[in-house]
């Protein structure tokens, strides 16, 4: 009995010591991306996760709201000038509004929807990384994202570029027909642009 108690006490002490050692070994504050002695989430995983949320929300808005109500049921239009025309904002606009709201609330990450064939020329790639990234995803038909690092305004950023694919018919018809579109031969499922996500690196 005494022996059993001793074993139980020893196990408990060992477990406590182990937990204590782990606790002491953990840095007080490990950042999202880890610290010198603790691995955190990689930048790639972080931007992949962000992109998954963005792409899913946008796809749902495109299919369940815009395509359903505008293209299928024809109860309301979707328009670039949605306020004037009392219409739904286009999926790309919904995405941009989210991006602007994020920018106004945090500087921990930023994202944009860019394209090599932009309707608004301000959404053409500007930095070398954007140019390379958009070319990469177009060449690879959106099969894999592009990751890189770049320095902007004296700060280092981890920059990821994800393919933005035409998920519904209206994406293609609108971009092909728009008076300012530099391309008129987009097809369904084709890469039309890219989502660029930037995370400042400490």
């Amino acid at each position: 009995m005494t022996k059993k108690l001793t074993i139980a006490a020893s196990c408990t002490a060992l477990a406590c010591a182990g937990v204590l050692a782990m606790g002491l070994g953990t840095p007080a504050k490990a950042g999202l991306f880890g610290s010198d002695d603790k691995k955190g989430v990689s930048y790639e995983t972080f931007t992949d996760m962000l992109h998954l949320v963005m792409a899913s929300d946008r796809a749902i808005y495109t299919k369940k709201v815009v395509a359903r109500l505008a293209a299928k049921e024809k109860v309301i239009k979707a328009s670039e000038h949605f306020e004037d025309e009392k219409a739904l904002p286009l999926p790309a606009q919904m995405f941009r509004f989210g991006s602007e709201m994020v920018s106004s609330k945090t500087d921990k990450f930023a994202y944009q929807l860019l394209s090599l064939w932009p309707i608004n020329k301000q959404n053409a790639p500007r930095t070398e990384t954007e140019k390379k990234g958009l070319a990469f995803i177009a060449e690879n038909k959106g099969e894999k994202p592009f990751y890189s690092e770049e320095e902007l305004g004296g700060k280092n950023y981890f920059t990821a570029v994800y393919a933005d694919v035409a998920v519904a018919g209206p994406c293609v018809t609108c971009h092909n027909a728009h008076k300012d579109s530099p391309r008129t031969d987009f097809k369904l499922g084709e890469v039309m642009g890219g989502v660029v996500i930037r995370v400042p690196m400490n």
Partner: protein
Amino acid sequence: MRNKLLWLVWITATLMGGGAVAATMHYGGDFRSVFLIGKTTSGHHQIEMACDACHTDMFGGIDALQKGCVTCHGDELKAANDSHPRSKFIDPRNADRVAVLDARYCVTCHREHQPGITNAMAVTLPTDYCALCHQDIAKNRPSHEGLAFDTCGNSGCHNFHDNRALYEDFLEKRHGEPDFKEVLLVALSNWTPPADQPKPERKALRALDADAPAAHRGALKHTADWAASGHAAAGVNCSGCHQPRKRTRPDEWVAAPAAKECAACHTAEAKTFTEGKHGMRQRDGLWVSRKDDFLGLFEDKGLPPMTPALARLPMKDDVHATALTCNTCHGAHKYDVKFAQVDACESCHADDHTKAFRMSPHNSLVDREASGDLPKGSGVTCATCHMPKHLVRDDYGTEKVFVTHNQNDNLRPNEKMIRTVCADCHGLRFTIDALADPALIKNNFKGKPAHHVESIDWVENRMRERARRQQQQ
């Protein structure tokens, strides 16, 4: 010994003088004007003594100034769908642009107290600032080839913040409108609430219903004026304005109700009044009271109402001391809306545009409406354009029309007037041209525009080009 005494006197005087200067700066008072570092712009000059309105924190730097700008102008920018919002410039990909033009901050382009370099719209940058980012515009817009770098904003084509009536599709949709539309009526002038909307129960009152106690009755004319007013028609009795706290303080009688009493019912009107040049000195939160900080030793009182004497526009000589409150234009008891629409403006303003109004085509519409020659809502008064009616809808769909009392809201740049006013009766081409013609504005639109803004022609060219390409395909 004498030297020591002199030193003591000198140090004491320096400390007291310095303290007085610092306290005046902090607490206010007329002497505060010595701290002005240069003539204030016309947008802010009448509130320049309320230093805290802009300098929200003595040590806050540029962010404290930004807070001041956004407090007053933030909503306006949001409503205008600001074409260059701060969020665009916070974006790291625009870091190189920010290095050239830090458009994250208002004061980059609008520096106060810099009269020598202040241009229209209080812009203190050289007028070619658009070119800092858009110098290659002709690459995508061949029509812009060879245009001078300072013509983007001053030609009636673009505005840095507000392009609601200037974007290409807007022009495209309206390019063919005639100068004068078929029906010439001011929108919302004959607005009535939708039939299914709940309406407040109102029982019109007559002179005999006046509930002012005998001690406060005043002249018979007051009662007669009130009985003929919209207040009586809407069932608002004497006590409605003179006893604002009737339930809690039944004995209280406010002899001269102020703006805050008006604001209890006319909330939107009162709020917008303090957003424009007429009432900005009365804006809530403009003056930070510190009376309790220093035993009231230094002057710490808010700004008195605006007077024509403070204005930078030409005003009549005999009204310089008139304080601008609700009753200045509306007149107590009578509340004659017609008077407030033109006569009230003319009683102070003495610039050419105002003086030319009575001979203007817009005023002839007012006369013809009054004589029954034209339907109600045909007349165009000063208020029609400078204090237009707005239709607002709350989250439950309830509609309401209110008259904006911010007469600056659509004034600068004047393209803001296109949607809020001019488009009711005029075509877009005529409107843009008229608004870009200073001589026509000066004579109050008597005649045709002598100036032509080409942007609408360029839009038509693009439409023709597109149609031609489509035919070829």
